[in-house]
C-alpha cells in the first residue's frame, strides 16, 4: 500500500468517529445490563426488607406457633431447629471437608488427587433436592424415619465438598519453603502439616467453612425428605425437626395472612443472617490479609 498521507490520516479520523459511537452504545448497553443485575438484587432485598422487617419482633423469635387459624405465635421452634441441624451438619461436614482438603493438597498423588477433586466438584454440583433424596434412602428409610439427624446429615453432605475444595486451594497457597523449613528441623510430615501449613492457611480455611455454613443455613430441599419439619418445639434430633426454610415454605402456602407475614419475617431473618456472615467474613479476611 502507499505511504500514509495527511489526508489519509484525516479519513481515518472520520472512521474513528463511527467506532467511537459504537463504543459508546456498547458501553451503554453493558452498563444497563449491569444496572439491571444489581437492580434485581436490590429489588429482591428491598422487597424482603419491606415485607419482613415490620413483622420481625422479639415475640416472633421467642414464641411458638399458635393453633392453626389463631393469630399470633412465632417461629422459635424453627430458629432452634435450624441452629441444631446446621450446627450438627457443620460439626461433621466441616472437619471432614478440612481433612479431605488437607489430603488433596498435601498427600494425594496426581491420579488420586484428580479423581477425588473431580468427585468433590461433582458432589458440589449435585442439586440439593437430590442430596435430600439420597439422605432419605440411606438414613431415613432404613432407620427410624424423619429426624433432625437425617437433616444434619444432608446439610453436612453439602458443606463437605465446598470446604474440601477451599481448604485445598488455600493450603496450596502456603509456600513450599515453609514445609521444607519445618521438615529440615526434623519435624515429622503430619506435624508439619498440622502445626505449620494449616495455621498459615487458617484464615482462608475458616472463611471457607463459615461461607459453607451460611450456604446450608439457607437450604430447604435437602430437609424436605429428611427433617420433614415440625410444628412443635423439639430439641430431640431423633425426631422430625423444624427449620426456618421449611417454615417459610409451609407458611407461604397456608391461606392465612398472619402466617404469610411470619414467613416474610423468617425470610428477612435468614437473608440478614447470611448477609451479616458474608460481610463479616470478608471484613475479617481483609483485615488479616488472606495468604
Amino acid at each position, binding site marked *: 500500500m502507499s505511504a500514509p498521507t495527511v489526508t489519509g490520516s484525516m479519513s481515518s479520523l472520520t472512521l474513528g468517529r463511527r467506532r467511537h459511537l459504537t463504543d459508546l452504545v456498547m458501553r451503554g448497553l453493558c452498563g444497563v445490563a449491569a444496572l439491571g443485575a444489581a437492580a434485581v438484587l436490590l429489588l429482591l432485598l428491598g422487597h424482603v426488607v419491606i415485607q419482613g422487617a415490620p413483622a420481625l419482633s422479639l415475640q416472633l423469635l421467642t414464641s411458638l406457633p399458635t393453633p392453626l387459624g389463631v393469630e399470633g405465635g412465632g417461629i422459635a421452634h424453627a430458629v432452634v431447629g435450624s441452629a441444631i441441624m446446621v450446627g450438627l451438619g457443620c460439626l461433621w461436614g466441616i472437619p471432614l471437608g478440612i481433612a479431605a482438603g488437607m489430603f488433596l493438597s498435601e498427600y494425594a498423588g496426581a491420579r488420586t488427587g484428580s479423581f477425588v477433586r473431580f468427585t468433590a466438584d461433582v458432589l458440589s454440583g449435585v442439586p440439593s433436592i437430590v442430596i435430600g433424596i439420597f439422605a432419605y434412602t440411606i438414613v431415613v428409610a432404613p432407620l427410624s424415619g424423619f429426624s433432625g439427624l437425617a437433616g444434619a446429615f444432608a446439610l453436612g453432605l453439602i458443606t463437605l465438598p465446598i470446604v474440601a475444595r477451599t481448604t485445598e486451594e488455600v493450603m496450596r497457597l502456603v509456600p513450599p519453603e515453609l514445609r*521444607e*523449613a*519445618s*521438615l*529440615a528441623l*526434623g519435624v515429622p510430615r503430619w506435624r508439619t502439616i498440622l502445626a*505449620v501449613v494449616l495455621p*498459615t492457611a487458617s484464615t482462608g480455611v475458616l472463611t471457607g467453612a463459615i461461607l459453607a455454613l451460611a450456604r446450608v443455613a439457607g437450604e430447604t430441599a435437602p430437609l424436605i425428605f429428611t427433617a420433614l419439619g415440625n410444628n412443635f418445639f423439639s430439641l430431640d434430633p431423633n425426631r422430625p425437626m423444624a427449620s426456618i426454610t421449611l417454615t417459610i415454605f409451609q407458611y407461604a402456602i397456608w391461606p392465612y395472612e398472619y402466617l404469610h407475614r411470619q414467613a416474610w419475617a423468617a425470610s428477612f431473618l435468614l437473608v440478614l443472617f447470611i448477609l451479616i456472615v458474608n460481610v463479616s467474613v470478608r471484613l475479617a479476611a481483609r483485615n488479616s490479609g488472606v495468604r
Partner: protein
Amino acid sequence: MHPGARSTSESTPPVIRTEAPMIRPQNPPVEAPAIGMRVARLSAWYGKHQAIRDVTLDIPERNVTAIIGPSGCGKSTLVRCLNRMHEVVRGARAEGEVIIGGLNIYDPAVDPVALRREVGMVFQRANPFPTMTIFENVVAGLRLTGRHNGRELREVAERSLQRAALWEEVKDKLNTPGTDLSGGQQQRLCIARALAVNPNVLLMDEPASALDPVATLRIEELIRALRDEIMIVIVTHNMQQAARVSDQTAFMLAGEERVGELIEVGPTTQIFTNPRDKRTEDYITGRFG
C-alpha cells in the same frame, strides 16, 4: 539439657568489617583433621533426569566447606542429599553413601526425620513461620518434636539467638512476629531456629544470595564464628564469599547431559590460588559461569 552444647561465641555481636580479605589466612594444620562426613559415589535424580553423578568428598570436623559452581551444576542438590531433604521432592531419589559419624544415612534403618535433627539446614530465602513470634520460631523445632519445658525452651532460645548473633537486636521483642524483622535478621532467625535443635552439621543453601551486602557480611561473620562448634557446608555462587568463609572448597560443573559432577575439592587457598583442574581455573578466573 544439651549435653552437646558447645561454648558459644558469647554475646558480643560480630563487628561488621569494612574490608574483607579475599583469602582468609589459614592456620597451619597441626594434625590431620578428623573426618566428619564422607560422601561416596553419590548420585541423585529428579524423575528420569540425573542431577549429580558419583560425587565423592570428605568433609573434616570443625570445618566450613564451600560448594561453588555455575547455575544448574547440582550444588544445591548435593547439599539437599546430605540431610535427605532431596527426597522430599516428588519423584526424587539418591544413590550412594553419605557417612556421618560412622553411619550411612542412606541405610534403610535410618529415620530421615531423626537425621534432620542432626543435620540442620538454612535456605536461600529466609522462611520464618509467619504464624509464629520470634521466640516461637526459634523453639519450633523443639516444640514440634514434643519438648515443652518452658525453662528449657527459654534457655535454648536465648542461647540459639546469641549463637546466631541476633539476641541483642530482638531480646526485647521476642513476642513480635518473626516476619516483622528485616531480611537479614529473618535469615539469622532461621539460623537460630536451625541451631536450636543442636545439630552437628549445618547445611546452608546460598544463605546470603537474597541479602544486601551488609546483611551478607553479618552472615559471613556468623559462619566464621560457628566454625569452631559445628560442621558447615555452604553452597554459594559468590566466589569471594567462598574464599572469605570456607576452609575447603569443592567445585562442581554440569557436563553435556546437564549432570553435575565434582571437578575438584581442596583447601580453599589452593583452589583459589593454584587449582589443579583447568576448568576450575577457568571458572574462578571468571572465564565462564
